[in-house]
């Protein structure tokens, strides 16, 4: 016997009414199960994009250093700032970072030379890697995970470093305060670089907007270095 269409419509309505909210509850349960995954994917994706950008910044900065751009000049630092658009790199002038200690990024530009006997016979630093120049671009007070970031290769002694004008490190052949730490030498431990050869190093530290989890040597921050 064929049902009355009015009755059929009415039963559908009653069933939908009696089931009202069930799908919502199930969806919420399913959503809360999968949401962390989506959130993790979003954060991870954003930070991969962030890290890729920091790669570009380090590469651009090192190419400028190799081309002998004077990175103490406001104009040179502004170029890097434009490459780092979106990373909140606040630049200034001079070798000692921006004056306000602001921003989410710091570039540490180092020129390192290997002192062999041809370069300097009988010098204290023969057989050592020494800083000949150090320039900070950005926020020198940048803190990541509660700690102020610092070059992985050490710092030249403050007495040797011209922190106001050029960033050059004086007496780098004779003063042990100009030496890098062992981390740098370890990178070239298999074959020391040729006597007198120079390595242009850019280390970039950035604090991303989302927690990133300790990739590449820096907890909760992005650290990328470029050596040329």
């Amino acid at each position: 016997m064929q049902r009355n269409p009015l009755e059929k419509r009415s039963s559908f309505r009653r069933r939908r009414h009696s089931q009202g909210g069930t799908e919502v509850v199930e969806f919420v349960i399913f959503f809360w199960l999968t949401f962390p995954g989506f959130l993790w994917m979003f954060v991870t994706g954003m930070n991969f994009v962030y890290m890729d950008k920091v790669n570009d910044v380090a590469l651009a900065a090192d190419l400028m250093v190799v081309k002998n751009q004077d990175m103490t000049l406001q104009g040179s630092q502004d170029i890097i700032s434009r490459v780092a658009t979106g990373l909140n790199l606040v630049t200034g002038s001079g070798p000692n970072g921006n004056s306000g200690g602001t921003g989410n990024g710091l570039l540490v530009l180092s020129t390192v030379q290997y002192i062999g006997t041809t370069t300097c016979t009988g010098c204290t630093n023969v057989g050592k890697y020494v800083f000949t120049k150090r320039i900070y671009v950005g926020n020198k007070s940048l803190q990541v995970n509660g700690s102020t970031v610092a070059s992985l290769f050490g710092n030249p002694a403050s007495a040797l470093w011209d922190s106001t004008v050029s960033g050059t490190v004086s007496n780098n052949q004779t003063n042990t305060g100009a030496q890098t730490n062992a981390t740098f030498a370890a990178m070239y431990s298999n074959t020391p670089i040729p006597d007198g050869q120079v390595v242009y190093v850019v280390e970039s530290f950035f604090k991303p907007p989302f927690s990133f989890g300790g990739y590449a040597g820096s907890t909760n921050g992005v650290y990328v270095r470029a050596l040329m």
Partner: protein
Amino acid sequence: MKSCSPLYAAKRRERGVVLLLGALCLPVIVAILGITVDLSIMYAIKGRLQMACDGAAVAALRSLNLANSIASQQIPAQAVATQWFNANFNGNFMGAQGTSLQTPVVAQNNATYVTSVQVSATTNSPSYFMKYYNFGATEIGATGQASRRNVVMTLVLDRSGSMNNASNEINGQTSCQVMVAAAKQFTGYFVPGADYIGMVSFAETVYIAQAPTTNFQAVLGYSNSSGSGTGLLDNISNNCTGGTNTSSALALGWNLNYQTALPGALNVILLMTDGNPTASTFSFVTTAANDPSGTAHNVLSTTASTCTDGSGTQMKSGGSMLTHSRNWIGTRESNSGSTFSFGAGSYWSAVSGPVGALYGDAAGGFYGVDLAFQPTSPNGSNTNENGWKNTTDAPGCGFSNQSYPPGDNPTSTPDVAFIPPTDLWGFSASGYQSMPDGNVSVQGVSRILLDVANLTAVNHNTTDNAATFVRTAHGTAGANLIYVIGLGGNADGVDSTLLQRVANDPNPCSNCSPALAAYAGVQTSQPIGKYVYSPDVSTLEEAFATIASEILRISR
């Protein structure tokens, strides 16, 4: 009963369907998440691998100067590329495995004059999620290439007497000796087999030592981290004496680049000097084209002259300086009247007749005539400097005694009647600076009076005009870049204002003495060079290194 109604049964059957569907979709969702994460990691590794290859390529390109030929440069390039690649890319970065660096390739394009280094590497990106779907590690690769335009360059080095002053010595080394050491370091920065470097040195005579050659390290000498060698540069060390003929040195240095005929390369003149220009080279017969009278005119006296040098040798013989002109091109009397050809491809084909360098120094208060240039000087000889200078060196010569009145050639006394309107190379004696002592009438035509003050201005003008000439394209030859090093410490000082103009450098010079403001007259249509001032000898090597960095334009 409600619980037994078909509607309730249907409702109960549909409970959990969303969850069930979600659970069924979960593998797909995880796969999407996995692909996203694994791809992100892959791109991150790819980005870092690319940067490592770029860094290694640039470093390897910088190392090409450590061997003497393109073939032999492969070995240090490979070593450097490997070192820098490993420093830039941690082999297990984000779980990457099986990283492999391929042998870097050094190549030279002889059509475009570009040398390049290519570095390629591969690694395997891990599969954290997709491995559960039977997708293993993915091999990814990157290639970095660094290239630079090869250089055709002539070093134009000052070997005047002031470079030998004991008062400027540091650690027992004269300016001349330090310049040689710094220049050898400079040649050590460039790439044998690819770059071309030649040299002229100059006092009031210009010595053409070597046309640009790719074998410059062996010929000129060099010094870098791979070793050192002696060459023509070393011959200058103890042979610095005489005046400063900057304009002729620029002309002949440029001519060497012109003869090399590689307009696609970066054509460069590097000028190093420690003083003001004190000499210019002239033909002592003006041409109809450049003489204000419209006809050729004799500048030398044709009457008998008592002019001799310090050893009693006559400046001319037979009474007429013009008809018995000395050949001041190369050696003295023995080659009188000969012609010197610059050889194939030269801008100036040949020089003959009465040609010499007029020199005068406002501070020193002397002027005289000497050789124009010495075609080749492989042993660095300087015996032809200062032959005809002052009343001691050139007794009886009209030009050496300012008490002589300006002459009305050819009948009056002075051996050189006036300063010609252009120098031997065609550069005007006028322009940048005006003549302090004005003109003199010779045979009814107004001409530049020959005295020290005027000659000093003329020497500045010929230098400025020579630089403009060098920075201008001629025929198929492109414009040359001029880099200049000015060395301070000389008692007479170096004219940084002039050298800034020569380099066409718009930048101020804060360490110059006195400090220079930005050069407002910069010629924007001509190549912009660089002027580097070295306050004393101790910073000369740094100045050369700065110029080397400027020239070595490494491009990715």
